[in-house]
């Protein structure tokens, strides 16, 4: 079933593909936020996701290959300006609009507020979005940056993480167990125990089932 983006989402997409800006550039992102405020009339219009969200949340500079946004309209849409087909995404996110309205992260940056997905959603999308047998070093680095942000007393909402995984992952996966493993990863990061290995293991569990599920729908 194909869902169509609403007019606001289409406008955001159009802006993301303006030719005068480099793909994934800060200039493009700043211009986007100026022209289309993330919040207006007491409503959040869209969230910045992907590597830019990790940079804002962790306060660490990263290299960016694209700009990802989640348009909080009906339907909720994921849009990016990626050039590579493997990263390009324009489609409805099945997580509910109510979820996004009630769950998000605000980072105060240069006297303004930047609106991002929660750490749980950013972490889940990082694991899920790496559709390859072995997770990249770049993704491991970004996951570790996110884990570092949890250390700053961010509350880990188990129910939220469980909801995200249940909606986004194949039903063959044991979501209760996976949620526990990710929570353990978050807690272990605080104690710095075998983090890379744990990240690789969790990615492998998720990806093996995702790849199996793809074979079935193709």
């Amino acid at each position: 079933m194909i869902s169509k983006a609403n007019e606001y989402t289409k406008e955001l997409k159009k802006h993301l593909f303006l030719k005068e800006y480099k793909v994934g550039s800060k200039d493009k992102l700043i211009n986007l936020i100026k022209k289309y405020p993330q919040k207006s009339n007491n409503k959040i219009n869209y969230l910045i996701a992907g590597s830019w969200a990790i940079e804002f949340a962790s306060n660490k500079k990263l290299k960016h290959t694209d700009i990802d946004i989640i348009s909080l309209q009906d339907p909720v849409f994921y849009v990016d300006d990626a050039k590579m087909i493997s990263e390009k995404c324009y489609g409805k996110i099945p997580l509910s609009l109510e979820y996004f309205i009630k769950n998000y992260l605000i980072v105060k940056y240069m006297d303004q507020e930047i609106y991002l997905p929660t750490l749980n959603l950013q972490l889940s999308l990082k694991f899920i979005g790496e559709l390859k047998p072995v997770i990249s070093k770049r993704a491991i680095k970004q996951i570790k940056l996110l884990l570092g942000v949890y250390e700053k007393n961010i509350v880990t909402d188990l129910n939220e993480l469980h909801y995200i995984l249940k909606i986004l992952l194949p039903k063959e996966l044991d979501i209760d167990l996976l949620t526990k493993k990710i929570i353990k990863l978050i807690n272990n990061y605080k104690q710095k125990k075998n983090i890379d290995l744990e990240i690789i293991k969790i990615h492998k569990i998720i990806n093996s089932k995702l790849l199996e599920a793809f074979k079935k729908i193709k």
Partner: protein
Amino acid sequence: MPNILMEFVNNKKVEKKDDKKFTTNVQVIDYKNKKIKN
């Protein structure tokens, strides 16, 4: 996130409806003032 993944999660969503109710969880990170608010 690759398009193919989005296609998959949307196909999956058609299989079951989730009527979960959410509590508000908004957190603020302020590096300038070194504050985290829940």
